[in-house]
């Protein structure tokens, strides 16, 4: 029962500013997040106008989607002089889950080891490793898998050439492709997420906990198993879950492999199924099967999110990101330790940076057409960024959408976090969850949801993606990348003591006035910092860009253009131009992170991207 005093409290909270912010936040998130997803769910459960599990039954009884027995594929099979590592086909659904589980486990192992070493040991060059280990986070959509493919190609691939043809270390040529290739590419791309989350946990851990245990005689692995690991569990759980979700929804790696080799197994994951069906949507409809697949995707993702929710809400994030309350407990590494640690990091960083290194080489040389190794340096592809009208249009589209999305995310982020931080209205906890949830909603699901919802209810209007997807892309970016801004702003608000506003109200300022005179100036750095991250990750957004963006070629953003090149459905350019675009994205990202790190003095808000 709501008590009278609670009602009074609510009444007091409801001054015009808060009321507007509250309504606006919910309106926006319901319209651009919840309703589209609800539309997918509706379609997936509707058969002949009635509620039914028909589509799910259909999906799960079709071995093409779900098959416990293998349906082909090659996993460590030797044919001639080549070892084929492609993976075994169990249908779209199981394939996706197997890949995601593999990626999660391997990324977790790598991430935890790296985080433990960085958090607990001192050795020369540590700070260099700390930076280099993040290289995989630099966006190289689609081209990453292309480059990995190019390295692993049985004939003409650099790795096979060096280790088989020249050095004769390998007994056979190795062909990593298909599902295994996807898993490898994703592991190398996503382990930093686990690493960063675990590192954050380790850094905020009270060192006396470990000291206490040591004084009681626990050492080495026992200490790790009984104290360190349990205490870093929040970071590991959050990081691993996010990796799982990212792997499920990833389009970049599969499309990259399809693009460079046409490998049939690379097609056999849920995200590609939805993507392919979306391509047919230009004619106006998305099949209920696709909706069912989207519902399955979103179920896994949201279940994962709910499991880690308490670690990723704004409130936890704000305390975690402060970090460094303790002086972390580090120890000098001995020679034996260094003999293990250096090879580990060098191998990890080298292999994980293959996509980024490859992108740079592709963009700046003739590698795309020269075969094994590049022969000459050229700025031709870079110059195409400014001269090729299609490329220029893609860039300006991306800039426009991302800029507009930042604006919306900043307004929405400030409004909603202010309501959460300051009001006692019911529904603020739900709002907190809604703000963080976009992390967990696969972009491809957002795309399907937008398509169904806005073609269904706004047919023929400016919001209809078949008329013009531009606005929807902006809304999609703003919602998908909202967590970056929301977290940053919320952390800022926590640093503004409420009395600073209260004293203004005793002096006669309404909340509206004190919000703009006091709060906004004091959180400006956080707003800008969050906005920058939202911008960067909007520029490199893949899922909705290559789906909604495909509905009208002239509206496609950068990542759509890259996908076109790699996927090869349209002969619009060469992979080198795609690489040049990736280089542009990387440059924007590096500059933005440097600005937010060194100028705004913010700890990079990577945590649980």
């Amino acid at each position: 029962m709501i008590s009278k005093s609670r009602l009074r409290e609510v009444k007091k909270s409801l001054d015009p500013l808060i009321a507007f912010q509250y309504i606006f936040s919910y309106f926006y998130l319901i319209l651009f997040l919840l309703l589209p997803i609800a539309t997918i769910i509706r379609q997936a459960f509707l058969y002949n106008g009635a509620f039914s599990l028909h589509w799910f039954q259909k999906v799960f009884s079709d071995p093409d989607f779900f098959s416990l027995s293998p349906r082909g594929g090659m996993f460590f099979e030797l044919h001639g002089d080549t070892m084929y590592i492609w993976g075994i086909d169990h249908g779209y659904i199981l394939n996706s889950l197997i890949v995601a589980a593999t990626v999660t486990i391997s990324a977790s192992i790598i991430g935890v080891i790296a985080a433990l070493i960085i958090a607990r040991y001192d050795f020369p060059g540590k700070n260099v490793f700390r930076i280099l280990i993040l290289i995989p986070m630099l966006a190289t959509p689609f081209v990453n898998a292309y480059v990995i493919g190019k390295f692993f190609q049985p004939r003409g691939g650099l790795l096979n050439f060096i280790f088989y043809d020249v050095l004769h270390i390998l007994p056979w040529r190795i062909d990593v492709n298909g599902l295994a290739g996807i898993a490898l590419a994703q592991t190398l791309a996503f382990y930093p997420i686990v690493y960063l989350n675990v590192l954050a946990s380790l850094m905020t851990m009270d060192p006396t906990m470990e000291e206490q245990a040591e004084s009681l005689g626990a050492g080495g692995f026992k200490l790790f198993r009984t104290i360190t690991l349990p205490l870093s569990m929040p970071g590991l759980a959050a990081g691993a879950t996010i990796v799982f979700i990212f792997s499920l929804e990833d389009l970049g790696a599969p499309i990259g492999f399809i693009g460079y080799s046409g490998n049939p197994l690379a097609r056999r994951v849920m995200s590609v199924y939805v993507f392919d069906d979306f391509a047919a949507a230009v004619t106006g409809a998305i099949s209920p099967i696709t909706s069912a697949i989207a519902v399955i995707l979103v179920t896994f993702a949201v279940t994962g999110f709910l499991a880690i929710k308490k670690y990723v809400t704004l409130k936890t994030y704000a305390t975690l990101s402060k970090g460094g309350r303790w002086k972390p407990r580090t120890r000098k590494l001995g020679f034996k330790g260094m003999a293990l640690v250096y090879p580990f990091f060098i191998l990890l960083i080298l292999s994980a940076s293959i996509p980024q290194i490859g992108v740079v080489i592709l963009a700046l040389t003739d590698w795309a057409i020269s075969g094994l190794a590049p022969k000459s340096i050229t700025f031709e592809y870079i110059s195409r960024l400014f001269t090729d009208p299609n490329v220029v249009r893609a860039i300006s589209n991306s800039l426009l959408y991302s800029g507009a999305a930042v604006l919306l995310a900043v307004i929405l982020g400030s409004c909603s976090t202010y309501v959460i931080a300051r009001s006692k209205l019911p529904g603020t906890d739900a709002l907190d969850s809604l703000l963080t949830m976009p992390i967990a909603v696969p972009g491809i699901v957002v795309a399907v949801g937008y398509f169904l919802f806005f073609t269904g209810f706004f047919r023929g209007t400016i919001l209809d993606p078949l008329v013009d997807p531009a606005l929807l892309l902006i809304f999609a970016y703003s919602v998908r990348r909202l967590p970056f801004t929301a977290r940053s702003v919320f952390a800022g608000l926590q640093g503004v003591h409420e009395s600073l506003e209260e004293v203004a109200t005793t002096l006669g300022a309404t909340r509206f006035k004190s919000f703009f005179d006091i709060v906004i100036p004091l959180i400006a750095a956080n707003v800008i910092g969050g906005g920058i991250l939202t911008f960067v990750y909007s520029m490199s957004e893949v899922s909705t860009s290559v789906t909604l963006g495909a509905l009208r070629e002239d509206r496609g953003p950068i990542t759509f253009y890259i996908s076109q090149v790699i996927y090869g459905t349209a002969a619009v350019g060469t992979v080198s131009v795609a690489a040049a675009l990736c280089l542009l994205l990387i440059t924007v990202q590096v500059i933005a992170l440097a600005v937010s790190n060194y100028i705004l003095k913010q700890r990079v808000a990577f945590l649980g991207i």
Partner: protein
Amino acid sequence: MVKVSLRNITKRFGKVVAADHITLDIQDGEFFTFLGPSGCGKTTTLRLIAGLEVPDEGRVYFDDVDVTDWPSYRRGVGMVFQNYALWPHMTVFDNVAYGLKIRKVPQSEIKSKVKEVLELVRLEGLENRYPHQLSGGQQQRVALARALVVEPKLLLLDEPLSNLDAKLRIEMREELKELQKRLGITTIYVTHDQEEAMVLSDRIAIMNNGRVEQVGTPQEVYRRPSNLFVATFIGRTSVLEGVVTAIGDFVEVKISDIKVKGVAINEVSVGDKVYVVLRPHDFSTRKEEEEVNIFEGVVEWMAFTGGLLEARIGISGGKILVTLDDEVPASMGKKLRVFVPWRNVIILKA
């Protein structure tokens, strides 16, 4: 200026009752203090008056106008927060001028008013500094100037001196009192420092666990505390337990084998169990005619503090703390006889 009335004001935070049916009147121009231990609800009460919290029950009146539902910005109070709450992104001038700008006072008038109030709190010349460039005492005065410049009907001060060092605290306390008298502004002050409350206030409300235990002048709460909490919270005390034996102009109490005469604060009758509250400063070694209010016992502990002798004496009904002239011949382990005038002995119903 304004008269403030609280009627049955109650505020709960979950299970904690931060303000518990508080009813009192604060007179026009009065310097009124809420005094009590940490967490007793002083700040909450002040915030209820300022309109920063909504009461669960009860009403707040300014000059008999019900302002309970008025938002803070309509109430016209000036408030100084415990942490000063100066805006870090504004200069001293901008901090002080803010309330005037809100009121759309013309620019030239703002300048002169800010100058005037900064002179009043002796901060001339610091207009262009930022808060972090000021000392604690200066920050406190900026906060005060910011509250005063809008000529509020009511000034609310939440432990404004608690962050200052001891010497500055005493200086500022005198300045504050003088300023308040000069401006004649109704002032509500919150502190947990009883000495500060005594020196500054016209009247004090002693709070405990959200309740107002007693309201009175400093003299009254010291000499006539209405219960044991107030008696022990204000000033230092020794408390003995006894039984009432006779009632007349005064009350006679027997504490084991000692007979004590004193003043009863509440209604007592013969045979009642009572507390006898004794203040260390009221004791002397002067011989007395009557055979009452004489305590004799062994000195268990003693110390000299600036011209005075403090001693703890074990008597048959307990222990008492006394403060005597340091000429008194006393030594550890030896017997000492002390006397206390009956008008100073406080007797409270147990």
